[in-house]
């Protein structure tokens, strides 16, 4: 029998960067769409991509529909604690990444959530974190200018970085500083401490009715007035209502060349390599600026740059990417959760135990995005355990279906080396290398030429070991 079809190396590369796992189903969808370039364009307009199955998963988490005030209320009453309602956002996010057809969109939601990071479970912002996610999603493929404004002035950010307490009498610099350092221009822009203070002054007045309605409000009485200067931005700031000023300031920062470079560098690190070339960064930054911070135009420039095509396998999968790709490649089919051990709920803890539940980084700078941060012994041990556990379907095991042994085997009878090759094609989109063949022979203790006539002869245990070994391979560790 002929071996099963696989994606070309170029297509596999494109999909490994702009999706959460290259499955045979995804490869078939790309072919239907007319190839990689057409798929990429289609993905830039996610509204046109039917996504019924993943959309229905939102209902699996009823508390995601609760207002911040009600989430706070049910936490206080003990009905549904904060660590659960915020984790629901994480669980739903994992499901979106694993099962949404709008794969590129999900990669961008993750990217922006990390750049404009508000931790999932932070003491003074958690009731607003679900609403914050909607704000990020709204502009993830729009303009950065809108995204920045929506994020920085959102109650979650206002609470997280203490702007809610910042008044003209006691200016709190936290948000004003991180806005410059993390969200926009970066320290390379060489702003002064006085500019940090001015940045914070501009933001005074934006607050939230904390521990109550959790609604955002603006208090002109709290707004610091007087001339301000931050980098090239100056204003008389005479009006106690500083809302228009703040929006002008954010717009200025979004369009600043340092912001363009910083975002271009971060995008290049996410989608190309840990050490992007200056040429790539310049090209992406130029597209960002000339398009008026349009995210789609920026991504097109990144994708069409020659560095993109030549960066095959240059990125280390993070533990979360490893887990989510494994869910996809192993063909997990979750159903509505019935308890905390159900797949759709347990995956939150599974990523947590790997050190990377969504939005789980506690500092305002977001998860690191370079391989050196994730290539550690702890991570390797975690991944080995994860692969074995998932390959065996041992955890999470409730309210989820996996393909049976028969469905994972090639046409029988087949030799062991053909079975390995088939698994490699299905999971890694490439033929089995001699080293993978050797690894599988040693793990399963089966010679290459042994014939299997029936699925039951091969058996579940051997299939578990085979799948785990394929997932332990270098090809799965990178993207």
């Amino acid at each position, binding site marked *: 029998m002929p071996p099963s079809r696989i994606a070309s190396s170029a297509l596999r590369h494109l999909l490994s960067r702009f999706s959460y796992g290259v499955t045979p189903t995804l490869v078939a969808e790309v072919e239907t769409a007319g190839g990689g370039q057409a798929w990429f364009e289609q993905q830039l307009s996610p509204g046109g991509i039917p996504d019924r199955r993943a959309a229905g998963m939102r209902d699996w988490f009823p508390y995601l529909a609760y207002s911040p005030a009600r989430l706070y209320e049910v*936490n*206080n009453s*003990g009905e549904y*604690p*904060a*660590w*659960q309602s915020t*984790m629901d956002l994480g669980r739903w996010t994992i499901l979106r990444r694993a099962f949404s057809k709008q794969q590129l969109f999900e990669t961008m939601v993750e990217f922006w959530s990390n750049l404009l990071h508000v*931790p999932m*479970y*932070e*003491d*003074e912002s958690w009731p607003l974190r679900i609403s914050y996610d909607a704000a990020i999603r709204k502009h993830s493929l729009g303009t950065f200018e809108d995204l920045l404004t929506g994020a920085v002035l959102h109650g979650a950010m206002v609470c997280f970085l203490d702007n809610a307490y910042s008044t003209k009498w006691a200016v709190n610099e936290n948000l004003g500083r991180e806005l410059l*350092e993390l969200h926009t221009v970066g*320290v390379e822009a060489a702003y002064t401490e006085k500019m940090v203070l001015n940045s914070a002054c501009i933001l005074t007045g934006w607050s939230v009715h904390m*521990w109550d309605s959790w609604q955002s409000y603006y208090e002109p009485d709290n707004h610091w007035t007087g001339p301000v200067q931050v980098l090239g931005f100056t204003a008389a700031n005479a009006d106690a209502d500083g809302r228009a000023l703040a929006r002008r300031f954010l717009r200025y920062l979004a369009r600043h060349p340092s912001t363009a470079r910083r975002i271009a560098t971060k995008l290049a690190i996410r989608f190309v390599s840990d050490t992007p070339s200056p040429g790539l960064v310049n090209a992406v930054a130029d597209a960002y600026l000339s398009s008026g911070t349009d995210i789609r135009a920026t991504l097109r420039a990144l994708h069409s740059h020659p560095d993109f095509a030549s960066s095959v396998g240059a990125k*280390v999968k993070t*533990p979360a990417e490893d887990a989510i790709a494994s869910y996809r490649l192993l063909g997990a089919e979750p159903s509505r959760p019935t308890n*905390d051990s159900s797949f759709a709920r*347990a995956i939150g*803890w599974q990523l*947590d*135990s*790997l*050190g*990377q*539940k969504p939005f*789980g980084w*506690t*500092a305002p*700078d977001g*998860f*690191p995005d370079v*391989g*050196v*941060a*994730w*290539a*550690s*012994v*702890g*991570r*390797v*041990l*975690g991944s*080995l*355990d994860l692969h*074995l556990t998932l390959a065996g379907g041992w*955890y999470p095991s409730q309210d989820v279906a996996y393909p049976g042994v028969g469905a994972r085997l090639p046409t029988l009878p087949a030799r062991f080396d053909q079975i390995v090759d088939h698994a490699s094609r299905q999971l890694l989109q490439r033929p089995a290398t001699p*080293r*993978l063949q050797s*690894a599988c022979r*040693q*793990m399963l203790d089966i010679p290459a030429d042994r014939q299997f006539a029936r699925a039951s002869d091969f058996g579940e245990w051997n299939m578990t070991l085979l799948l785990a*070994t394929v997932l*332990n*391979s*270098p090809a799965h*560790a*990178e993207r």
Partner: protein
Amino acid sequence: MTDDTVAACGCPDFQTTRRTFLKGASAAAGAGVLTSMVGGVFTQTTFGAEAGGNVLVVLSLRGGSDGLSLVVPHGDADYARLRPTIKLPTNSLLAKDALFGLHPGFKPLEKLWLDGRFGAVQAVGMPTPDRSHFSAMEKVEDADDGSAARVGWINRLVGLSGTGVPNQAIQLGTSLAPTALIGPASAMSVYALRDIALPGGSEDPVFQRRTRNSLEAMWTGNDSLMGRAVDSTLTTTRDLAGVAGSTAGPHNGAAYPSGDDLGNALAQTARLIRADVGTQVVALDFGSWDHHENLGTVDAGDLQWMVRNMASCLAAFFTDLGTLGTRVTVVTISEFGRTARENGSQGAEHGYGNCMLLLGGGVQGGTVHGGWPGLRSAELVDGDLSVHLDYRSVLAEVIATRFPAVSVPSVFPGFQREAVGVMR
């Protein structure tokens, strides 16, 4: 984490371990980091230093410990005035002098104090107050004002020790990005010492050997980042097999409190130190000390059993270490102290000045170091004990005396340290 923590004070974030202590940089410098979660105690251990060297154990009292209840200023008349219900009576205190006495829960450590191996520094903290768990913890752990690098002082310490030990020493790589959010349904199961093993562990050596062989077949000679991490994993699991698989109990008749997370973490730490695999710094998170309410009194409330528990664990740790204890220095640190005045719930709010406790090798103990600014209203900073001494001066003195090869200014850039006298 329990939901009433959130309801009570709305500030559970200290429980989400904010680990800037150890990350990234240490790998390049040849040190490795092992991360483990023993129950609720988050532990990070560095390796890669020379065997037989000194060891620093940093015990982070997460949540903002109430230094006034640990090293009690019973001789300050304002103490009793500010704390009518939660004050500790003078006659209950241990190792009293005219001004200070130890919380009675320190009884298991009283002998160490009297022997001069356990001491304290009062009125320490950061140069400016920060009453947010979140940013205060980051600042304490970063200890590098004005730098955006977010590296962490322990990282700088292990990165700069200059022992020249190559990566092939016990290289455990950097830690996973740490989060320690604990809910009752948590599947939190990161690496206790026994988990530093390939799947199969010591219970199934055949399976473990097959896993090892299959990984070697695929990864040997792979020089990518992950290739090196896999190589380190294969080395580490082999080298630590004796320590990880060992079921040997504590030495010298040490009795850790049964089933206690801190005790388990310290017991594992003692085993690693005894195995002499180049352990240099061990960072443990222990909490919560965020006693907004029911901080309590001498024999009731939340604080007293935590002190007793911590003291029992540390006493067992030094018993367990025996003569090795002279190589090991324990220092406690917390993101801030608590308000001088008690609140209406037999607790105290986020404050400023705090105490630090030091035990073991090199400690000039048996006394309370540091100056005492006093608790008179005029001396308080927004109602809190003021800071007489920068906490970095204490850490710098520990580093200077215990790790003389390390350049202290490189660990605390731009910081001018004061002599404290707590280390000899």
